[in-house]
């Protein structure tokens, strides 16, 4: 193999394929990961099915301005997330394209922000002047957005709420 290119390539591809099948393809066989929740259905109707709705427009702006780099939408069954609302279920983001789960919490998690702050006016005011609304905030102002864009973002924020899920019988146990 120390001279044979083909062997090197074939083996490298083989080991890659094994890991890929196991960690990326096999999960598609897991039914638990393939069932949309009522929350997902609600978001689908608002956003995926109506690409012109304010919520859909707001989601696009959220992506465009990279809110997801400061805000996760990902509540875990851990102590740190205990006060953030219901734990994220696999099916909750079933229809999301792309997912906006994020990887940082420079600001609070927004998975259920619509339940926490259902007032659109608050969101608009906060987007225009975060420091005016929350003293010492390090969230940047979005005062250069148009009124329509602010409305849309606020509508998207308010739409981020939990829809009762009959399957969610067991309360998550906070493990860590």
């Amino acid at each position, binding site marked *: 193999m120390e001279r044979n290119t083909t062997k090197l390539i074939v083996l490298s591809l083989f080991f890659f394929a094994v890991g890929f099948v*196991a960690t990326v393809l096999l999960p598609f066989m897991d039914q*638990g990961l393939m069932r949309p929740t009522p929350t997902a259905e609600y978001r689908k109707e608002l956003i995926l099915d109506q690409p012109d709705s304010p919520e859909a427009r707001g989601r696009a702006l959220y992506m465009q301005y990279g809110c*997801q780099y400061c805000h996760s939408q990902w509540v875990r069954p851990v102590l740190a997330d205990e006060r953030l609302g219901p734990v994220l279920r696999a099916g909750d983001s079933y229809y999301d394209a792309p997912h906006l789960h994020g990887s940082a*919490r420079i600001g609070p998690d927004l998975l259920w922000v619509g339940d926490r702050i259902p007032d659109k006016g608050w969101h608009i005011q906060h987007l225009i002047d975060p420091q005016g609304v929350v003293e010492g905030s390090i969230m940047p102002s979005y005062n250069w957005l148009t009124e329509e864009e602010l409305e849309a973002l606020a509508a998207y924020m308010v739409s981020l709420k939990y829809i009762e899920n009959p399957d969610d019988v067991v309360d998550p146990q906070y493990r860590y």
Partner: protein
Amino acid sequence: MSTNSLSLLSTEKDSAAKYMMLSSLIWLIVPSLLGLFLAIKLVWPDFLNQSPYLSFGPMRTVHTNGVLLGWLSMVQVGAMYYMLPRLLNTTLWSERLGNVTVWMWNIGMTIGAGTLFMGITSGVEYAELIWPLDLYIVVMVSLVILNAFMTVAQRQERQFYVSVWYFLGSMVWLPLVYLVGNVPVEMIHVPGVHQLNMNWFLGHNILGLWFTTMGVAMVYYLLPKVTGLPIYSHKLSLIGFWTIAIFYVWNGPHHLANGPIPPWLQKAGIVPSLLMIIPVWTVIANVFGTIKNQMNLIRDNVIVKYLITAGIFYLAACLQGPFQSFMSVSAVLKFTHWTVGHAHMAPFATFTFIGMAAMYYIIPRLTGQSLYSWSLANWTYWLGTLGFLVMGLSLWTAGVMQGFAWIDGKDFMAVVEAIRPYMLLRILGGAMMMASMVVFLWNMVMTVRTSQAKIPLEQSDQKVMVQS
């Protein structure tokens, strides 16, 4: 330099390596400066926030894509264009094709940065470029791969030195990793959790099967060349290669710790993470084994100092990694600034250092000029190392504070206030890193531009040996 070497698609020997490496400097300096701006924004949010194009989100995407797809990838491909032919006792199959990729890379990055600034993004972290640009990258990378494999095909040296393994492995894996992570979900429906999983398949494997393998190949080339000492153990380096090849690709799910995935998948990501200690240990053992009787080289030779430091930070990153992949640890550290500290250690303090070491070695050999200043190289080293330590330690401290404060149920803003001093320190560290890069740029520009008497290349090796 002759005017000939400035022509757009030169066929001159090693011109592709030279232009790839020199132009990568643009993508080191500009996106890093944006990174410094981002750090400032996290303390003073109004800084440069007058227009949508300069707002936090778009600027962050240009920062990450710029340094990773621009600087790091380019300097590594440039180094491969230089090293691969020498390891195989041949020339690069096509310099012209190599130069085509230099242009494609710079033009693609410019368009990419433009679209990201305008907020045209796929929204997926580390895969933000929109699909037409992804296709462009696939074509570009295919040309790099073609050139690499044709160079192998025309080789005179039959035996593959370990760097060749690592280079070729990277060539095989990069396109696959990139494709999995960039499936256009607007067109092909993929459930959100699977997107998340594929997102981090890319996020993790682009590091492990591209930056890491290319960087390790460069170390295995540079260390014996610069020291004149043979690599401690060939066998060890091959164990390192195959453990990366076998286990790295399993690591993606550790980014989803405590996430909405089944326990078997969590474990499938955690166990291989622990095994990642093996490849990093082989590299470290080899690096230290090689110079163990001549430790003075670390003091006397700037390039060796860079490589050793890079190795130490590589080890540190790969000790942090498995630790973070435990669900209990992740429960505290995930989403905090800790991750950002970790995420800068390997790309900056390991692979950027290796890239710089490669340029100190290669650029003088390609221009026939000795390096403009080894003492400036030392400044770059110290500013970079100390700057990173200031930044890393402040981010890790802030991260641990955030993690435990959230568990205690502290008010979100109280935590933001509490870590503000560390965010200020991070700016200081970032400014030192930036200064280090500017000195590096200056040193490189002066090396290329100053018309000194040409020195024979063998001698420039000696120069590396004796000057600190």
